[in-house]
C-alpha cells in the first residue's frame, strides 16, 4: 500500500519520468508498461496529433487529440510539446509548438481536440525540407 501511494505521489509531482509512459503513432496510443498495470497507469490521459505542410516562416494549427480513458471526467490544465531532432543538419529547435494552458474538460472514455500553433522558424536550414519532427507531449490534468 505504501509503495502504491508513493508511486502515485511521484507521478503527480514529477515530470512523468517516474510515472507512466505512453507510446503511439499519433492516432492510436497504448501504454508502455514494464510491470503490472496499476491504477496510476490507468489514470493517464493520452495526447496525440500531427500536422504537415510547414515551411520556413509558416505557422499551422496542430490539432491535439486528448483522450481520457478514465471512468470519470478530467480537466486538462496544460499540455506542452517537446520537439525531437528530425535528422542530421536539422535541429528540433527549428520548430516551435505553443503550449496549451486552460481548462479542457474531457469526458470519460472520450476524446477532445484542442489546437496549438506550430511554427517552423524562418531560419530553418535547407536540410529540414521534408523532415518529420517527432513530438513528445506532456500534460497535466485533474479530476473534474
Amino acid at each position: 500500500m505504501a509503495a502504491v501511494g508513493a508511486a502515485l505521489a511521484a507521478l503527480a509531482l514529477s515530470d512523468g519520468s517516474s510515472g507512466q509512459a505512453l507510446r503511439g503513432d499519433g492516432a492510436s496510443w497504448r501504454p508502455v508498461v514494464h510491470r503490472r498495470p496499476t491504477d496510476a497507469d490507468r489514470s493517464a490521459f493520452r495526447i496525440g496529433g500531427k500536422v504537415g505542410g510547414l515551411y520556413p516562416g509558416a505557422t499551422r494549427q496542430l490539432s491535439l487529440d486528448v483522450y481520457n480513458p478514465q471512468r470519470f471526467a478530467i480537466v486538462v490544465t496544460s499540455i506542452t510539446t517537446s520537439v525531437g531532432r528530425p535528422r542530421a543538419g536539422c535541429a528540433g529547435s527549428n520548430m516551435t509548438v505553443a503550449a496549451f494552458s486552460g481548462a479542457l474538460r474531457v469526458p470519460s472514455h472520450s476524446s477532445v481536440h484542442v489546437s496549438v500553433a506550430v511554427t517552423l522558424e524562418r531560419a530553418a536550414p535547407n536540410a529540414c525540407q521534408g523532415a518529420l519532427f517527432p513530438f513528445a507531449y506532456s500534460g497535466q490534468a485533474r479530476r473534474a
Partner: protein
Amino acid sequence: MSLARRRCAKLGLVASVVVAAPVTGALAAWTSPGGGGAGAAATVMPGGSAPTASVYGTNVTISWPAASFQGGASVVGYTVRRIDAGTGAPATIGASCSGVVTSTSCTEQNVPAGSWVYTDTPVQQSWSGPQSPPGNTVSLGVNGASGGLAATGSSVPAGGGAPSPSGGAPSPSGDAGATTTVERSALPQVAGRSGRLPLPTPIALLQLRERGRGTVGKVVVGERRGGRTSVRDGFRWGGRGV
C-alpha cells in the same frame, strides 16, 4: 492484482490527490513520447518552371510562372541564373537579376554577347527548390537573329535594300559608328524582306546580316496580329551612316 491490492490502489489514488494538490483536486502529470507519425512534417520546396527570355537591345527580360507550396502559398522569391547555351557554363548575372528576386520577372541589362539560357529556382528563406529547366535560348551580338528567332530572311543583301530615315532604300555606306532611326513607315520594307517571323515572344530583336560583313543592323519587332508579326519599333542601322 488481488482484491485487497486493488482496494489499496484506490486508496492510494485518493492519497495522491491529497499529496499532489490538496486545493485543486487530483492533479497528475504525464509524459507521452510520440512515435510513428506523431509530430510535424515539413514540406518540400516546389520546383521552378522554365522561364521565358525576351531580348530588347542588350537587355533581356526574364519571366517565369510563380511557384507555390502545396496549399497554395507562393514562395518568397527566386534566384535566376544565366547559362551559356553552348557550353552549359553558368555566367555572372547582372545586378538587377542577382540575389533573390521577389517578383516573377526581372530584366538583366547589358547582357554580354553570346547565346544564353536562363533558369529560375524558388527560394524560401534558406530553402531552395529544384532549379527549373532552361528556357528559350537568346542570342545577343552574334550572327543571326536574337530572341529565339529563326534566322529566316534576316540577311540584307550587300548594296542596300534596307530602309532609310525617309522611308526609302538606304545605302549601307556612310560614316562608321553612326546610328540612325528610320521612319516607321520604312520598316515594313525590312519586314517584307524578313517574311513572317516566328517570334516566340511579343517583342524581339531582329538582327540583320549582310553577307560577308556579319551583323549590319538591328530592328525591334513585335505586335503579332493574325499570325503575322509586324515591325513595331525603330530600325537602327548600327555602324553605318545612312
